[in-house]
């Protein structure tokens, strides 16, 4: 067990920011553990979700943001649906993941690589180009064998188009990205 010196390590600014961005109050959590009991991902988490909630109450920014769990949550909404205090736990985890990304805590690099490849494809074409996303992911991760055995199957079934479906308004979509990044007004 680890002892925390809360008078020295409680990060009030962090807690306030999570509350503002998620519009949730972590103080409502009374550690019943329902979220972790129902979470299908507990088996791969380094911190189970109820511990993330407790660490959030204790203002432990660093410990939370470097947790791999944030990148492995699939937002399946079990925790949110089952929280007896109606805390939108999945929304809190999503907000923590946004913060981890902004602060550069990338503890599951391949998950981020996949998400980035997906979003870049949408920015470029307006709709996601599945094959292009996979190719980009493979190039970035260096894992050239990823799903290679599925290639012939999806091709034979006509389930993967070799060309992207560019939409006319793809510039409008790209502008959403650029405005979000502050690169365009």
């Amino acid at each position, binding site marked *: 067990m680890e002892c925390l010196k809360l008078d020295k390590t409680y990060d009030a600014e962090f807690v306030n920011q999570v509350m503002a961005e998620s519009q949730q109050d972590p103080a409502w959590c009374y550690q019943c553990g329902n979220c972790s009991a129902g979470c299908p991902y507990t088996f791969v988490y380094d911190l189970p979700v109820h511990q993330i909630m407790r660490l959030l109450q204790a203002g432990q920014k660093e410990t939370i943001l470097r947790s791999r769990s944030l990148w492995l949550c699939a937002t399946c909404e079990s925790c949110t649906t089952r929280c007896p205090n109606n805390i939108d736990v999945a929304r809190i985890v999503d907000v923590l993941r946004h913060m981890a990304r902004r602060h550069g805590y990338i503890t599951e690099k391949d998950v981020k690589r996949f998400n980035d490849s997906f979003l870049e494809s949408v920015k470029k074409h307006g*709709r996601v180009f599945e094959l292009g996303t996979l190719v980009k*992911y493979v190039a970035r991760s260096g894992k050239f064998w990823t799903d290679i055995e599925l290639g012939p199957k999806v091709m034979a079934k006509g389930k993967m188009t070799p060309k992207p479906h560019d939409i006319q*308004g793809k510039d*409008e979509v790209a502008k959403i990205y650029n*405005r979000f990044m502050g690169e365009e007004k």
Partner: protein
Amino acid sequence: MADAYAYYPGCSGLGTSREYEQSTRAICRALGIELRDIPDWSCCGSTPAHTVDHVFSAALSARNLALVEDLGLETVITPCPSCLTNLKVASHRMHDESFFNDVNALLDKPCGNSVAVKSVLQVLVEDLGPEAIRDKVSKPLAGLKVAPYYGCIMNRPPEIMRFDDPENPTAMDTILQALGAEVVPFPLKVECCGASYGVARKDIVMHLSGKLLDLAQDNGADAMVTACPLCQMNLDLRQGQINSALGRDFRMPVFYYTQLMGLALSIDADELGLNRLNVNPKRALHRAEQRLKERERQQAEKEAKRQARKSEREASAA
């Protein structure tokens, strides 16, 4: 029922879930549900977008909601639960004024947030109803045992999704029963399949989807039935990977519920994209036919015995 619904197919409908897209359109045509395509629709951003930022994610959805407003239609429907969630969450959060303004600041053309978002399944169950579907069934799926798997996000969280039960949804069960199929108990109806981790963390999908296949098999299902492109891909396309990873030998076909509806409505199998499924469903459909024949044979035998006893009684009375 509304005159027409705006229709948002989602990107996977153009690729990995083409058979869902084909079969959805085919059954809507057969049932008189008019789908109006949204001109130049764009991607909702799916999971990757909401893991980056909520306003950004909502803006990708809101561009499409604005296009639906241009069509002058009240409701947009989509077969894909991931698209559904993104469109619904965007619409829900935009009721907050500052969120609404932040989203519109990212868009070329503002979104008024006046459109209702539903799944195709919700329209089939609530607007059309299982009775109307039953009336159109010409080839009942009698003898076919199916495990209905809903996936994690179609009904959750209930405050936003507002459809069916969040822990034990029954919309697909109701439809499958209307088609004449036999629904086996499936307690993991809303348990996650591993979602989009199939590429970056395959081990997760092997474990979670493996559990689902295992339960469906244990409970005697000939096939699983889904409403989600990602669930279907994990369970069907990745079934070989799951078998290798877990040392199993699953041969469980995984249908989209719309494909089974199409079969019961006598729509051609190719039009429903049955040929695009990875695990060939022929064996399962054949097994169901055999089971039905066996039941009919037993029934006939019983009836014959009853008749024989009856004649015996009549003869002895005379």
